[in-house]
């Protein structure tokens, strides 16, 4: 499964990069979302896959068997998801505003404002 996921992550990342390189600003935001999916999955896979074993303690369930699931990557991903959400929301608003002000979605037209 790890090998399969490795390729899934690679694919998500590639798709994200491809979208980032588009000129349309809407595609740019999709690219960022794809990238954040890829990275979340990367951290998750790196922490090790253990089927159906949530990190709960103190319920007396299978307490004699040590739980191999690593809670730390999960906590990290949780944070990452929330922050990713914040960024996406902000980016959406920015994009909305950008389109309103400039009337274009072509990122290449931003260049003019930069070099003038």
């Amino acid at each position, binding site marked *: 499964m790890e090998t399969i996921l490795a390729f899934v992550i690679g694919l998500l990342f590639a798709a994200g990069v491809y979208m980032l390189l588009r000129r349309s600003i809407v595609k740019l935001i999709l690219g960022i979302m794809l990238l954040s999916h890829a990275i979340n999955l990367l951290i*998750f896979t790196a922490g090790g896959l253990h089927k159906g074993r949530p990190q709960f303690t103190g319920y007396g369930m299978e307490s004699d068997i040590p739980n191999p699931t690593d809670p730390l990557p999960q906590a990290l991903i949780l944070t990452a998801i929330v922050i990713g959400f914040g960024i996406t929301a902000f980016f959406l608003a920015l994009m909305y505003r950008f389109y309103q002000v400039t009337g274009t979605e072509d990122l290449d037209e931003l260049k003019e404002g930069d070099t003038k």
Partner: protein
Amino acid sequence: MNGILVYLLILLIAALLSPAIIQRGGRHAAWLLGLISAAGFAMFLTYAPLTSAGEKLSLTINWLPELYLNFSLYLDGLSLFFALLITGMGALVLVFAGKYMQPYPLRHRFFFLILLFEFAMLALVISGNLFTMFIFWELTSVSSFLLVGFSHEKPEARNAALQALLITVAGGLAMMAGFIILGQAAGTLEIPLLLKSGDIIRNHPHYLPALLLILAGAFTKSAQFPFHFWLPGAMQAPSPVSAFLHSATMVKAGIYLLMRLSPVMGGTPEWKYILTITGAITMLLGGYFAYSQTDFKKVLAYTTISALGILVLMLGIDTDISIKAAIIFLLVHALYKGALFMIAGLIDKSAGSRDLRKLGGLFRAMPVAAVAAIISLLSMAGLPPMIGFIGKELIYEAKIGLPDIGNFLLLAGVLTNVIMVAISLTLIFNLFLGPLKYPGEKPKRPALALRIGPMILASVSLVFGLFPSTVADLLLRPAITSIRPTIDTLKLALWHGFNEVLLMSFITVAAGIILFLLYRKVNPVLTRFNNEVITFRFADAFNKGLDFFLSLTKKKTALVQSGYQRIYLIAIFIMTSALAWYQIAYTWKDMAVNVITPPGVYELLIVTVIVASAIFATLAKSRLAAILSLGATGYGIALLFINYGAIDVAITMILAETLILVLFMVVIYHLPKFTSFSSGKTRLRDAGIALLAGGFMTGLVLKAGQVNLSPKISEFYTENALSLAHGKNTVNVILVDFRALDTLGEITVLVIAAIGVTALLKLRTKKGSAT
């Protein structure tokens, strides 16, 4: 040694306070600043008996001893000699400037700069660590830049200042590289230790590069050919600066460095040849151009170049007698050059011109100053009974009987001195004797503050010439011994008896008089020759080179900085992927996943959904379809999380995905439709880059399976979640308890994002203001 440290601080504080002192202190405020400098002179004089007895004082404040970087001070005969020159000359220059700078509205700034310069120069010569020295070396470059460009409303002054800065700082940079090599070779940068490791350094395989780099620093600072051109330009500075810069400071920093490192790096054939040849060329060049000028200050500037050439030459000859000659000539030159630049300043001020052709008979207008000038000029010509005579005799003695190019050096030396004699006589007769001539108003008698510097310096030239033994043992011999410990006696006298040196002096004076008599006829010819035949100007070539460099960087920037963010992204992705791929390929054979969880049908189905929806999202032609399928990808990943026991993560993921979808739906009708901007070729290129980057991610995951991180961190959380934090869900406990501060940061990010979103949506642009 602590006293010296305190004095350095006092000087720095005086520099900082000087603008206020000058502005509030009235007309004689500069005397106070001069007094501070003179106090330093007196303090250093009290150290003279110590260094004369061969004692060496040092003080080290450790900073980064592992990298040999320390703040160190070191005082021996040589440092003391320079420290006295700097503080003594500084005192006279400050007093002179107090009067001279009166008409300048920004004079308070001037005093800050010149005191800062004095501070930097003084700290440079008593530095005990090459890096400490380097820092002050650069500080002298920067402060001299500001001083040369002091009259910044004049374009020539700005240009000259920039040239001086670029050349000396470029040299300083090279010198720093040389210091680093030196430090690696000797294992220290402390001067007292370096002085003992000369043999190691001279036999080190990197000796030559280190030498060349350090010489680049010394030669640029001391205006040696081909870097000499910044110095005549630097006379754009007000006269007090020139007097200070040319006599005891700045250009002497390079000479000081050569003297300091002479026991460490000197004595090799490379050292001898580079120094003698550069010195000889500079000496002749300076002499020729000095003779062909008509501006008093320019004449003086070129004679400085010539004198610096003589000093480098003497250090290159590197015999006992040449080292003695170098130290004594340094003193000689400082005394007469400081005096003459002040005289140039006061003549310019009272007679309204510096042009030799427009002036004459100034003795009547300013007898005292004229006497001081004549004494200094006689010292420059090397005539008895001035100390300049002793200096010149020693220089001749050092040049006699040298092997191979010795005869050429002797001839060049005599020629240079002939020119010096001719220039001195020309200046004496043209400026001071004969009928009174002036272009503007009748020259006034200069004020005491203007006269006192030249008077003191000239009388010192005379007294030291008549009674040379007064300073020989106390100041000069310790300085010489610091360069060459084997010398322990120094006998100076005006009269050496009849020998070939005296004969050469006679020839020099005779030829000099002839050249002087020819001056009026030859000078206009030479001036025309300089202007019409020698069209090549180093300063112009330098400016052209600078312009070329600027246009080159502009082109380079235009090439690299396209302004398209995609191009920057491509550069980042390609570079990162290429580096990572190199690493992956390097360790390819170890690539295997050591933990294998067998995939079930259910997981395979989810993976298929994720892959299919991601591909569809990428290729979709409609926004809606793309967003929805991206949502499917997100939910798929959430399902995977559930499947592998990450319930909390999955819940969050589903919530976030849903919210994003909703947000998208809200704004989607305000957004443009998907448009295809790129051509097929661009798409193919981008797809290639994307696959390169994605492939490296796959490789990374495959490698990550092998990495066995220390499990202790996670174990700590698992074991203590219940007992310490009283929570049963470990992931939650980590977030809200163990790493609560991170979560606080995360919430802060959300708040900022929310504020940003509100601001962006609510902000109403006024028409025309935002576009």
